[in-house]
């Protein structure tokens, strides 16, 4: 600050309204090691030295000046002060420039030109679009032009210069721009705002997805907590999201179980050997390390492996999972079967149910050929094949499967029941299991059989 102005301030503040009788002043003096009265005196002296006439108060100065200048405008000849056009002071010049530039600000450059400049990558200035209506025209022009990057440039400007509620109400009627804006918000990780905009656009399903994704992005640690939060707060206000709501609720329920289940099994000293028994027809099984975050069925399969006998009231109980999540019989049987086989247990009890007239039947109508395929991929025990093959519907199919999995006795039995002597002989030559060869020979020796060939 310039010195003279400094002094002016002190003097004017002193004259403006110091009342030595007022109580307030007693607290506020001597800031600079002098009482206000002292400073006022000092300033008086200084001003007198500079020949500046002391004025009563700054406001009154402005008023008089203004009145003078105004009068000079109307009747310049009467003016007591002389305004010379030729020699404006430096300060005046600056003021003029400032003034004229504010005037320039009022003129809005053509939105069409600006949009084109953005498109061509030339320099542009959006700051002149101040009024809401100008902004709307600009946005519409950008949309009309057709280049999305131009629309984005305008949207980024609007994001900075408009309250989001105002912007949302604009976007409500402009679908193309709204989609671009949602994409921008997603990139900026403003999922809550994206969700709000979607709600504005009557798209509550998408809003839910944005909220849900925002939780997933945060990582596994706090996922359960975050999901519970959106469940309690944002989702409550959305309509027509019954399906999504249900899914998120189930997800929370699953997470509630997974942590204790993973924690309950003491980790083996050495890292678990990666289970290399896989089948192209089933998914990869999970280990204790990646249980948390795995799917419901993977969790079920895990529980079938390590907590098969857990009573229903425990979190890790397979039956408990089935009930809580209303799993279908098919979902349960497949995963129980795979889980037991991987533990080298006999899965036959899971697969068989009592059918009509007490005859055993495959539960959930699973296909036997598929079961056997998977069992063979996962190194299932042979007796499983012997137990399941007799249940195939036709002998032809039984023959095919038995041959494929080399269950010789079953192949032979089918051939015998078909009275196909030639095939039997051929089969005898193709195998080297002495017991089965003997079995064939014994059968052929029986003279009562009436072979068809």
């Amino acid at each position: 600050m310039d010195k003279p102005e400094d002094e002016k301030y002190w003097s004017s503040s002193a004259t403006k309204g110091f009342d030595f009788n007022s109580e307030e002043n007693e607290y506020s003096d001597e800031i600079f090691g002098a009482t206000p009265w002292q400073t006022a005196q000092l300033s008086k002296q200084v001003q007198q030295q500079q020949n500046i006439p002391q004025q009563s108060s700054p406001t009154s100065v402005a008023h008089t000046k203004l009145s003078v200048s105004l009068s000079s405008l109307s009747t310049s000849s009467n003016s007591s002060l002389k305004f010379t056009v030729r020699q404006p002071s430096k300060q005046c010049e600056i003021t003029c420039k400032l003034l004229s530039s504010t005037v320039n600000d009022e003129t809005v450059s053509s939105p069409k030109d600006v949009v084109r400049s953005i498109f061509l990558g030339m320099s542009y200035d959006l700051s002149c679009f101040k009024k809401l209506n100008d902004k709307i025209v600009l946005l519409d022009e950008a949309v009309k032009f057709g280049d999305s990057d131009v629309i984005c440039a305008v949207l980024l400007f609007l994001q900075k210069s408009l309250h989001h509620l105002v912007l949302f109400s604009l976007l409500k009627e402009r679908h193309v721009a709204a989609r671009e804006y949602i994409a921008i918000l997603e990139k900026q990780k403003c999922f809550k705002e994206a969700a709000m905009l979607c709600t504005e656009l009557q798209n509550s399903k998408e809003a839910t997805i944005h909220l849900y994704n925002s939780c997933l992005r945060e990582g596994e640690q706090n996922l359960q907590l975050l999901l519970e939060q959106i469940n309690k707060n944002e989702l409550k206000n959305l309509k027509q999201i019954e399906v999504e709501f249900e899914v998120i609720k189930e997800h929370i329920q699953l997470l509630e179980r997974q942590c204790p289940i993973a924690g309950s099994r003491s980790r083996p000293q050495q890292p678990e050997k990666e289970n290399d028994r896989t089948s192209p027809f089933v998914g990869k099984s999970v280990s204790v390390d990646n249980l948390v975050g795995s799917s419901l069925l993977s969790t079920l399969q895990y529980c079938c492996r390590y907590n098969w006998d857990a009573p229903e009231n425990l979190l890790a109980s397979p039956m408990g999972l089935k009930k809580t999540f209303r799993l279908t019989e098919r979902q349960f049987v497949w995963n129980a079967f795979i889980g037991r086989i991987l533990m080298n247990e006999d899965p036959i009890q899971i697969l068989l149910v009592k059918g009509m007239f007490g005859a055993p039947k495959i539960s959930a109508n699973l296909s036997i050929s598929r079961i056997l395929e998977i069992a063979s991929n996962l190194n299932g025990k042979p007796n499983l094949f012997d137990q399941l093959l007799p249940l195939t519907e036709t002998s032809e199919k039984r023959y095919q499967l038995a041959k494929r999995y080399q269950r010789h006795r079953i192949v032979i039995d089918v051939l015998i029941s078909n009275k196909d002597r030639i095939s039997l002989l051929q089969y005898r030559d193709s195998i080297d299991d002495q017991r089965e060869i003997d079995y064939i020979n014994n059968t052929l020796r029986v003279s009562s059989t009436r072979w068809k060939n």
Partner: protein
Amino acid sequence: MSDNFRARDIALKAQKKILSRMSTKGVAKVFVDDRMGSLLDNVYRLCKTYTQNKKESEKIVKNIIKIVTKISLLARNEQFTQEELATASDFQNKFHKAAKTVISFFEVDFSYDQKFLTQLLTECRNLLKQIVQRHLTDKSLGRIDLVFGFFSNPAFLDIVFKKNSEYNEIMSKIISDMHSALDQGELCIFGTDCFSVSKIKNNIVFNEIMDIENLRQSSQFRLLSLLTKIAPNGVLKDLVIHEDLMKPIDLVSGARLLRERGVDKMFKLSSVAPPWKNSVRLYLIPSIYAVAENVAWHLKQSETDKMIAYHIIVVPKVLNVIHSVFESLGVLDFVTLHSYSWDFIPLDSNLLSLEFHQFFNASFLKEENSLLTSVAKALMSFECLFGKFPCVTTLGEKSHRVHKLLGTWQGEIRPPFPEESDFTHLIMIDRNIDFASLLLTQLTYEGVLDENLKLKSGFVYLDTDGAEGSQRLMLNSTSDEIYSEIKGKHISLVFQHLSKKAKELQQRREIKNTDSIEEMKVFVSHDLKKIQSQQKYLALHISACEMVMKRQAGILEELLGLQEDVMSDSKLKEYLLFLEDSIARQFDFYAILRMVCLYSVMEDGLPEKEYQFLHRQLLQAYGYRHLSTLHYLQRLGLFRQRDSKSLSLEPLLPDRLARVAQVTSLKSERVPFRKICQRLNLFPQNESSDANSSAKSGQHPSYVFGGIYTPLIYQLVEKCLKEKEPNLGDFARCFGNNLRIGDYSHPQWGARGKILVCFLGGVTLAEAASLDLLSRQLGRHIVVATTSTISGPALMESIACPNIDT
């Protein structure tokens, strides 16, 4: 008429002017090829060594380039008269002779004859001046004099051809370049420097149709000149490159040319800063926000040193959102952003790709269309090389927008287009018009490789993990003869072909063993190499087949049967049961999603109960986090609930009323996909019993999907190319406003030019194969251009990814 001519003259003048301002080696490379670049470098060095004057040598090389480009320009615009062309042919022969002479003099000791060569060169100069006299200014003619004068200078020639002189090394390089040119059959000769002119001459006389490879050169030129612009070639630069861009950049320029431009160390972009070596540091990244943001944060945290300059090259464009992230992090003080957009990259003889892998998800899923402009720009660039497309047909909203943007670009840039159009048709289609081609299993060899081994910019990796250094197979029919024979074949015929080929190659080897020594020499130097390289390729193809068989054993057949059922609208209960059963045991997620989507697309959405059921089963089996995956599929119209309203009244109404009803609701009413298939005849008629065999033999386009479906694009292109008037009524009825047909009164509509078919959002190789078939059937050249290649599994994988970055 006369007006027209004048305008052309002006345009030409402008082009000449522009070129004269940009006479760099790079520009010349647009017109000539790679070898030329290295040749010019060596010539420059030769001159410099001789004159010891940098300026003068530069001037000579610059003059060569100027002459070359100007003549090429004249040639392209067909400014030469018949007479001049005849002279050009004479010049060509003389030049040929001069080049051979140079080689012989250098290689055969004591054969150098200065007078002979000087005379030859003088004759060449006179012929050349005669050709261009009418077209170029005196100044240009002066340039020709200068160049020829320099090289026919006896003192220069004497010292250059002197044995064991300091020029020997450079000369041997030049000679070897000339040799390799001869080996390639390009007898247009690069001799010393001015020989480049004859290359252009060659273009005039023999090479009227420009090669598609020019696209590559145009991309290359722009990349290299950007690098030079960032820092002169002499300044060493470090380059960090994003994984997705490595293959495309390799295809555009190759590492050697980058090194010539001063690129020193190259790193793959990773989460940690590379061990920088130089102070000019480049990043080459795709215009994906998350990638850009990571780089920006990286730079934010790195120490700022005023001596270090960072340059980020964004492909294809520095989008405004990307600029904003760099700006907001306050790194623009030491970081400069550059846009680089390549042209369509030739992946195979008839397949061009922009390699924008994020395009589908950005445009169709998120409806952010910033990349459309870059596609339009690439198309305009294409037009600059091959002429404007007189007839444009678009099917789909994005295609229409790209077409409009193409017009905008043309209006803004007003580039000089060649007079003649090589390509008479541009047919553009949105990926979401025909989802079936994406969801059905592709059964051509290349399609199967893509689905199982993930084709990446023309390469597949033959190890399951695709790790660095694993065996890779480049799928390009121009370099791999075996691939060109089998790529479009139905897979059931591939192995047969390969084993036949193996026997053949073995035989060719054995027969040759008994030949005479002379023949043996020829055989060893020519055939043997070829046979060996073919055997190498053969082994790679066989191991690729084995990998696919291992993956698909016991699965493929069942899936194909089910697909056939769903396409013919039969046994849907069993289809649904299969889905339920497979989902319960967590069968391959992407395969399941494809089947679910195919079901939904063909049934025009699922009934509420079925939809809810599958939705629930999928999430329970594969994880609740796929809630968003299923939501995205729904938004794309791939897996959705049937609208209760869309119960069409059409079958109940008399035909005429139905048509009226349809016309009035053309915009809002979406025609169910099955109906589209029926109207457009996309389900092949299986009247004959041998339908299956004809499908496999590749006579009918549906063979690419095992005879159950004809790609929609095949029908569209075929109908568009119907003589005189396109027969697109059925398409208009199916797609209403989405179909925009160009002006088919245009005289070029019936012309038999080439056709560019452009896919927005990706093309499957099966579709490309069906267009190859059409091309053979019609005897017309069809080129496929796409934003990227795509396959069903790749699409599902990208949608199921937790963060879809665009």
